[in-house]
């Protein structure tokens, strides 16, 4: 049994800084990225503040912005989120144009799949969960709003995230059990990323120029993102259902690395956490290096196995796996992880 209690759960805010400060040394690239993200976020917020937003509208940043892992080469994954239905409202379109002035210029455009860089209706995220109408795009937006999003302008981001959380937590949730509906959807999102990765490979006739880069991100940042959602959901087994919304909101308000750092401490897996963050710090260091990114982009499915860089990224991914497996299956979290995360 997990001997911990709800009292042991704490707000993970600045959990990474606290972990590295206590159990360091190391993590300087993660901390550099956090400082860089904070500076850039301040700049963007200042720019966006020059415009006016409808009261039900907010500009949200996703991905490395929300993970606080921004590099010079990161995409600007942004969206205008409407607490209701965006439709073709002219005032919402004006916010989109405002955001385009400050985000996504040059090679920082959001991905080509049109998941971001436009208006999103919170109603669709809340009302279309599961079945055919819950498209991959909708699932991705909803999962990332929960797992890695930060507000750049406006004030309804928190409310929208709460609405999405309530969709999962409003019924069927039991005291001292992980909320299964939410858990299943987060696991579904993670597995969907993996399956879609293969779909993209097929669509390019096996010659996807981004195969290696995508694969590297699956092994690292995407995995950390998933684990940073999975662990707090599993930790709900320490809570009465009435306490889960507030707890999950606090968790999701911090980046995944804060949540995981707090979990490594809570479950007394300090050494494993130290190695986990050393490996992830190295990944961030690689992504901060323009030459490394260029080399990664030059690799193909065929050439990757002879690459020292890709071998190192594989090793980083293995180290992250090992740390997470230790956290999930070699600590008191294992009982709930085995029951809920596997079956």
């Amino acid at each position, binding site marked *: 049994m997990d001997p911990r209690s709800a009292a042991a759960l704490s707000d993970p805010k600045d959990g990474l800084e606290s972990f590295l400060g206590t159990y360091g040394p190391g993590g300087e690239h993660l901390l550099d990225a956090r400082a860089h993200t904070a500076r850039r976020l301040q700049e963007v917020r200042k720019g966006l503040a020059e415009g006016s937003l409808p009261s039900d509208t907010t500009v949200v940043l996703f991905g490395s912005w929300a993970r606080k892992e921004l590099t010079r080469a990161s995409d600007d994954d942004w969206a205008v989120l409407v607490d209701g239905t965006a439709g073709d409202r002219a005032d919402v379109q004006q916010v989109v144009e405002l955001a385009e002035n400050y985000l996504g210029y040059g090679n920082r455009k959001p991905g080509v799949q049109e998941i971001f860089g436009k208006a999103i209706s919170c109603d669709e995220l809340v009302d279309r969960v599961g079945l055919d109408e819950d498209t991959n795009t909708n699932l991705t937006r909803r999962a990332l709003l929960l797992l890695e999003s930060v507000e750049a302008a406006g004030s309804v981001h928190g409310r929208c995230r709460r609405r999405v959380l309530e969709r999962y937590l409003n019924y069927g949730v039991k005291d001292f059990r992980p909320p299964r509906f939410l858990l299943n959807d987060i696991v579904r999102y993670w597995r969907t990323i993996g399956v879609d990765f293969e779909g993209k490979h097929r669509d390019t006739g096996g010659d996807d120029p981004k195969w290696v880069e995508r694969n590297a991100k699956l092994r690292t940042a995407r995995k950390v993102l998933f684990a940073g959602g999975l662990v707090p959901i599993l930790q709900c087994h320490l809570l009465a259902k009435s306490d889960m919304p507030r707890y999950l909101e606090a968790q999701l308000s911090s980046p995944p690395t804060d949540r995981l750092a707090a979990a490594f401490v809570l479950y007394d897996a300090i050494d*494993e956490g130290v190695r986990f963050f050393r490996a992830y710090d190295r990944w961030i260091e690689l992504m901060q290096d323009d030459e490394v990114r260029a080399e990664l982009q030059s690799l193909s499915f065929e050439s990757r196995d002879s690459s020292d860089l890709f071998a190192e990224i594989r090793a980083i991914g293995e180290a992250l796996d090992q*740390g997470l497996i230790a956290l999930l299956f070699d600590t008191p979290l294992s009982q709930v992880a085995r029951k809920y995360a596997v079956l």
Partner: protein
Amino acid sequence: MVEQRGDWEELVASSAAVSTLAIELSALSQEELPDLTTFLLRDPSMPFHYVGVHAPSKGLNGDERGRVRALTELPARVRSIIVHPDTMKDLDAWSVLGRRLVIENMDARRPSGQTADQLAGLFDALPLAGLCFDIAHAKHVDPSLEGGRAILDRFSDRLRQVHLSSLDEDGHHVRLTDEDEELFTPLLERCRDVPWILEAPLR
């Protein structure tokens, strides 16, 4: 596995029968390394997630740079190259192995690399290197294991793998004894995420 020495396919099969997670292939004698490298460059089908190679520590000729150069020929699937500190004189030469270089703490019979302070000099010179924590060696140096604890306290972030066994009176690796299992447990609980390489059969 002494009788299988040099028969890499047989050694791989024997290891896989114990665990498919990790293997460390040992070219303990320098003359064994070319054959092991050739075997690995053929990209044999192996089930292991983690492949390490123990660098030669016996029968060494004087050409340290040549020895390191030979180790660089090992294919990328070899995650770690485990090296005894007392075989490293020209530290600059070893830097070419980068993050694949993994330094093992030594037993009391060796002249260096036994304690955290001694290892610190190596890691200062080779900042990318990892640690192979040989817990039996740590006990050989300090039966209380305080020295082993100090190694983990100082270099836990570098830990890549553990060597697990007991030692006999002559310092040879033998089956883990019940006493050592109990003694080692607190430190091994700090190493749950890395491969444990058994240096003697468990039973």
